[in-house]
């Protein structure tokens, strides 16, 4: 589509994105720079006090630390389980690989609230795990498995694991097998070939898998609430609670702290893994 009239095509999506995506974010940032107000959405005075409060208050700092801790654990475990699974998937013949990828893709289409409910049904006091253990005579009183940080980690990790597997499997499947053959022909054993050839060449998939899992962890309010309960709140729960309390400037600041965290960790993952290096750009 060329020519000046082609801009007619561009205007509606552009207007939509500017009015209801970029615009509201700019407005939210503007509100985060204001004092709170009892009667209005936000007060008149310009201030950075909301940000100062978030990054100095020990309560918020505990929550931020817990958020990073949970996210790091989820990333580590999903990478540890996801990489070998992706390798397994990538080594299958095309038809079977497709079926496995579909089996991984399908759960991602099911609403996260349904998948979190599945974990509630497993971990609850009258859930599958407790009833099975009781029927086997291993416990007398049900274990409190739900409403803990561990439950959040297990639930979220498994909910997001398919993203990690699919990202890495797609990179591994597209990888030119001759690199590995060359390494082996030059005398490298399977472990060395993996560590020095396969693993570095798969960093684009690893990086995109990690980014997806991390960014979705930050936003997963419903899963965190259902599995973590009131004692395992993360940063996103603070955003929600503050909005519910109508403290708009504070909520806006918390949202941008969350966004800053997302950008920071994204930058770290990209700097460490340098996925573009593999694609021959830098």
């Amino acid at each position, binding site marked *: 589509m060329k020519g000046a009239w082609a801009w007619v095509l*561009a205007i509606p999506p*552009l207007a939509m994105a500017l009015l209801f*995506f970029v*615009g509201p*974010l700019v407005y939210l940032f503007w509100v985060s720079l204001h004092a709170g107000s009892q009667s209005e959405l936000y007060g008149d005075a310009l201030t950075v006090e909301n940000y100062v409060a978030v990054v100095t208050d020990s309560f918020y700092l505990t929550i931020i630390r817990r958020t990073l801790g949970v996210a790091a654990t989820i990333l580590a475990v999903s990478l540890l389980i996801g*990489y070998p699974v992706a390798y397994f998937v990538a080594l299958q013949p095309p038809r079977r690989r497709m079926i496995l990828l579909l089996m991984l893709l399908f759960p991602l289409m*099911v609403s*996260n609230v349904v998948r979190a409910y599945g974990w509630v049904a497993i971990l609850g006091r009258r859930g599958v795990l407790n009833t099975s253990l009781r029927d086997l005579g291993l416990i007398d009183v049900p274990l409190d498995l739900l409403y803990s940080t561990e439950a959040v980690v297990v639930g979220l990790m498994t909910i997001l694991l398919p993203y990690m597997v699919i990202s890495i499997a797609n990179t591994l499947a597209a990888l030119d097998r001759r690199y590995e053959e060359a390494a082996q022909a030059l005398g490298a054993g399977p472990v060395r070939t993996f560590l020095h050839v396969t693993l570095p060449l798969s960093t684009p998939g690893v990086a995109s898998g990690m980014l997806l899992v991390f960014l979705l962890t930050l936003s997963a309010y*419903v899963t965190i609430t259902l599995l973590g309960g009131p004692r395992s709140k993360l940063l996103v729960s603070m955003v929600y609670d503050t909005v519910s309390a109508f403290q708009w400037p504070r909520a*806006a600041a918390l949202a941008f702290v969350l966004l800053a965290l997302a950008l920071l960790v994204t930058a770290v993952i990209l700097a460490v893994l340098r996925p573009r290096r593999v694609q021959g750009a830098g």
Partner: protein
Amino acid sequence: MTMGTHLLGRTVRGTATVVAFVLIVVPILIVVVTAFSPLDYFEFPPRSLSLRWFVEFFRLENMRNAFTLSLELALLAATLATLLGTMGALFLARRRGWLAGLLQSLFLAPLVFPTIILGVALLLLYKTIGMPVFPGLLIAHCIIGLPYGFRTVLASAQALDPALEEAGQSLGAGPVRTLFLVTLPLIWQGVLSGWLFAFIVSFGELNAALFLTGPGLTTLPIEIFSYLQFQGSQLVIAAASTLQIALIVLMVAFIERIVGIGRLIRAR
């Protein structure tokens, strides 16, 4: 000996795959099986099967309304998102340069942007301008679906041989006729898979809807969430969840029939 035949590597890969599939699939399976339980309380595996919780689901007005609202919302949001995405993709398909790159990033951004922040930002805007609930939700889901409509159409449009469009034009068709008689018939599979993806995403969406639903106007995922949060784990939730899953199964079967399942993987 390649990595593929190395015994240790094979054992690790095989074990991890079994563990991963169990962890991913079992929670979903438990929900579906529980939905057919004849009892008032949770029992797994159930001793017999019944449809009473599905009957209960359609008897509860708020559940029924949430299901209908989610369906309407997903249909409209997917259509709007695909329409806008297709426009953006056709505009950008053959363009290079920083402006094209910027626009492409803008249309794809909602894919990775934390939707919870988008939800907060839109709620604040809606409160300021007094937006009613349904159009507000529709716009939010349209923004969230936009990257799906955009990306699949962009891939199809870029794979298109430009000579075909040029042929149309040199035979005297204007740009609009070329669009409808040449380009769209050639990329309709991309358009349709984009629409289906946007539908599925909207139908299960939680983070924006969490803020934007109102009293009496709730989507199915949010209704399930508030039931779980405030009324405990009643089995009607399992039935609601199973209906959510059933609709997704229907959509996937539809994709398979119309465009072939392979597209789904590539579209991701």
